[in-house]
């Protein structure tokens, strides 16, 4: 893939993401109906001019719900991923840079965090959460939890990258010239971590989208009637019944298409920016 084509693809993907984000954030104005309005005489209705993506099993307009879900998920999943990567960057760098007992302590904490059965912990936390929290607060709580709990894996990657960078020739040269440690870290180490952190970010976003969908099964995450991509994907679970049914009701796959296209677009936009030659491989 040549550079011009890649640039064009990058522009198209960026435009797509911006349009989607705008549609999501303008959902209260752009959506034909409120996400919770039930048309009880039109349950599971097929796509039509009134309901472009049909209605769900409670008669709610799927198109409107998708727009509102885009607003929720497009904001919160990256925010949670950012929180995880920020924690991973801080703790992983500190471990790699400090070495000694602090490194051992932080890495042991990361190992412990990976081995803890989070599912049971999340169930316990849900039990501790007041029942009358609004769907929005429950949603924020869920993504904050995901963000706080997901640091361990990326932190180990960051730690090994920092160790690698610190062992490189230019860092040794800087040290020999008497560059102060903090300048060494912020000026010479962090900028070189950017590709690693970015990769961690983009792999974490879809993982959190799916985690949020699964947490819905436990009563965590998005509660009725607020939609999210996760909850819309969960509705597809029941549609796995018949491939023939899905092929004749393609609009049901709209949430899946949106999630996949957003993740691919993000990767194209980023991958094209960092290394155009590697995208085609």
């Amino acid at each position, binding site marked *: 893939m040549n550079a011009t084509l890649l640039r064009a693809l990058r522009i198209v993907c960026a435009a797509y993401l911006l349009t989607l984000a705008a549609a999501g954030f303008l959902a209260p104005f752009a959506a034909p109906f409120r996400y919770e309005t*039930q048309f009880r005489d039109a349950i599971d209705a097929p796509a039509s001019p009134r309901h472009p993506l049909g209605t769900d099993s409670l008669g709610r307009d799927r198109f409107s719900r998708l727009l509102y879900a885009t607003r929720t998920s497009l904001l919160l999943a990256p925010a949670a991923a950012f929180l995880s990567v920020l924690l991973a960057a801080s703790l992983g760098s500190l471990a790699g840079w400090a070495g000694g007992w602090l490194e051992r302590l932080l890495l042991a904490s990361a190992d412990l965090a990976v081995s803890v059965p989070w599912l049971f912990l999340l169930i316990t936390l849900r039990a501790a959460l007041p*029942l*009358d*929290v609004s769907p929005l607060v429950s949603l924020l709580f869920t993504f904050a939890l995901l963000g706080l709990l997901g640091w361990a894996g990326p932190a180990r990657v960051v730690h090994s990258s920092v160790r690698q960078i610190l062992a490189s020739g230019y860092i040794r040269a800087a040290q020999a010239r008497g560059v102060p440690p903090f300048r060494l870290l912020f000026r010479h180490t962090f900028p070189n971590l950017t590709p690693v952190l970015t990769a961690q970010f983009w792999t974490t976003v879809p993982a959190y989208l799916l985690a949020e969908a699964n947490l*819905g*099964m436990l*009563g965590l995450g998005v509660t009725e009637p607020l939609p999210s991509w996760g909850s819309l994907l969960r509705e597809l679970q029941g549609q796995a*019944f018949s491939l023939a049914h899905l092929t004749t009701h393609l609009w049901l796959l709209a949430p899946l298409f949106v999630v996949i296209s957003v993740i691919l677009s993000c990767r194209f936009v980023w991958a094209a920016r960092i290394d155009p030659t590697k995208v085609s491989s």
Partner: protein
Amino acid sequence: MNILPLALLACIALHGETGGTLRLAIRSEPKTLDPLLVADEPSELVRYLTHAPLIRMNRPRQAPEPALAESWTISDAGRRVTLRLRRNVAFSDGSPFDAADVCHTFLRLPETNSPSAEPFHFAAGRLTCHAQGFTVILQFPAVLTGVERLFDAVPILSSRSSSKDRAGLGPFTIVENKAGAYIHLERNAHYWKRGADGRRLPYLHAVRLEMQRNRDLELIRFRRGELDLIHSLDAESFERLRAEAPGAVLNLGVSLDTEQLWFNQAPAAALPGYKKEWFRSTAFRLAVSDAIRRADMVSVVYRGHAAPAFGPVSPSNRNWVNAAARQPSAGPAAALARLEKAGFQKRGDILYDRAGNPVAFSLITNAGNKSRERLAAMVQQDLAAIGIRVTIAPLDFPSLIERIAKSFEYDACLLGLVFDDPDPNAQKNVWVSSAAQHQWNPSQKSPGTPWEAELDRLMQTVASSPDTGKRKQAFHRVQQIAAEQAPFVYLVHRNALAAVSPRLRHTEPAILRPQLLWNVEFLRIE
């Protein structure tokens, strides 16, 4: 030379008639394999397949019929039951069955804490059992009305077998129990029942109960032919399967089960005072009931395969339903009028109580149950129309049970009750104020309200009166109180929907559980 192929053919034909493995899914692990401790559906199914009672309820006819007891007589106004036992009956391990086993089982009941043993817990005195050869006399310290129906849930255990509870008198016996995966049962070679052709039953060689929590996967496996039947099919799956294979689905009609919501009225609940006041207000509960559009629930959630519920008794229970107490909901306008009369006021989109608190509560239900989550979403929208804000909180089942039975940390709950017996005795543990399933305020030391005291008295009559007319009158009054006080806001009675493979023969579906397996010993796989 010619005899051998003929013999082989005969063997194959015989095997075709009597062999085969019936495969079905259970949605959770049986909590116990001790037949006297059964309190959950999977354990109950295993008990049904592996053990036998003295008297069995014929599910389609809803009437008792002889099982291990050939005949029985009830005397002393229902306090004494004399049973004549079958001879030449053996447990699955070959040990003989006699009157000593019956006494051994019944004398264990008062020490056993399970729903099936509960009717045999007497406030004063103990039951006594006299064994005389193959005759048993059970003497109860109090009247047990409809006692022969209660026997259906009492499996007879061996008093002398070394394998204890594993030795059963049912058509199958457990040969392998792989936790989290499956339970494999094979035919009990000593089963006492014989078919019309004189052959020892059951006809099936084995039954395999496979753990399958996910209902969608259960359906996919049924369609692939990996499962032979599905009990309790949800309406959406039923409709899809019907479109694909009309012969594979069975609509057994409106079940005895109920779906309902209730408000937490337990005095120990850590709720704000104003919420307790709402929940204890009859006008508030009735207004909530009035605002809920049950007909929409039937058409939206159950695709028409349910009946609106206005009381604890299903319309299919014709002998006991009080039609006069089944008052349809009056609608949101009437609900608002009722609330305003009780001091509530709607300003804008929000309803306020007399003290100016906005009316809002959380509604818990079990996460993962699509029908209940949809019912909750519909309740949310219906109550929004009268200004009540409902927050839905789906919880995993153990957390939910913890809240409604122990910590009482909840506002309202949406759940269902399952009934296996049309007799009102089956509802005793719901209506008696001291019962654990008196959900809105369970396990009371003394009834908290005059109407609950009346319920206690009425259920005592229902449980002890030998006069059917009096029992009916008392239970009709129970339904009347339920309608007037609305401690439970009943929503729907769902239909019993099932799917059955065309390979499975001689099924005789019934509304009562186990709907398609009640005559399991006669089933055949082609």
